């Protein structure tokens, strides 16, 4: 896909970002942030994943079809999560 194979400087930058992310999530886990612990951990994990997808997997400069495929995959994952939780989360109300 990326016909032009440029220098690999960019990869080390991404690696650094991922390392910072890992340290951050590790440190954040030890602070008692009440209900915010999980959302923060997930947010950091999502940013790390987005970095890997866009740069390491070259989705940033690939054609529209690949981008749509990635988004579709995540959308279907969300269908599975949200509609299953519609049941389990609403059980105490009924």
């Amino acid at each position, binding site marked *: *896909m*990326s016909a032009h*194979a440029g220098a*690999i400087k960019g*990869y*080390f930058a*991404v*690696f650094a970002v*991922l*390392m910072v992310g*890992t340290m951050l*999530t*590790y*440190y954040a*886990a*030890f*602070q*008692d*942030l*009440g209900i915010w*612990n*999980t959302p923060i*951990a*997930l947010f*950091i*994990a999502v940013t*790390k*994943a987005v970095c*890997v*997808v866009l*740069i*390491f*997997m070259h989705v940033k400069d*690939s*054609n529209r*079809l*690949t981008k749509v*495929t*990635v988004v*579709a*995959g*995540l959308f*279907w*994952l969300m269908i*599975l*999560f949200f509609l*299953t*939780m519609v049941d*389990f*989360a609403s059980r105490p109300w009924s």
Partner: protein
Amino acid sequence: MHKHHFDTFDQQKDASSFGMWVFLVQEIMFFGGLFVAYLVYRHQYYMAFGTSSATLRVDLGLFNTIVLIGSSLTMAIAVNAAQRSLQKRLIAFLLATMALGATFLGVKVIEYTEKFEKREVPGANFCFNPQGAPCKGVSHEEEKTPDLIQRYLNGRFGKLPGLDKAAEHGAEATTHAEAGEAAAPEPGVPGEATERQRSMPGSEVYFSLYFAMTGMHALHMIVGIGLMVWLLYWATKGLYSAEYYTPIENFGLYWHFVDIVWIFLFPLLYLINRHIGGHH
């Protein structure tokens, strides 16, 4: 040099990388099934997941995350090398990626064996009861030694606020167990509950999910390393160059995907309860 049924070489390259992405979407849904089970059971057994997760060696987990992100870097460099026909660099970084992958699996073996010793493996022999009577055959000393990073950091910076709680928790849990044991009266209960039934409810579900998710992830790593041996063989034959690098690139996509799965597994399995808030 393209296959007979494609009109142009670009059409073949586009097709194979698009095919790889569709395969990765299928993998997302495959792991998605495990993650939905995790989501549901964490919602149901909120406390048990926290306590059970506290037994994991978070130092090994962190080390493994660094190793795997490193292998993602080396893999990206290898793909780049193939695109620029740098044969020696390609082979070097493929080997590096394999080495890091093998390290990751080695660490997993250490973690798994430790789980087997402490009987925290789901199945007939399962026993996990931090508050109640300790499980037979599990010596106490192990639980006292906090993992490596805590000891190192505590040594260097003295008692760091969040960091030493994990150690105390380990100690506190055991003292609590003795206290608890004395206090619980011996009720005149007819049949005797097995150690598995006396274990904390929901903890066996956590460990089942832990082994299912990390096991399936490790299986994907093993398949990945196997594929790399095949790619390495052909790389040494000089098959991959700027004209033909799709197998390397597609394998790169697969490897980065396996890394992303671990990026989510690490916080969700290892880090959910390190702050030991007011839960217990």
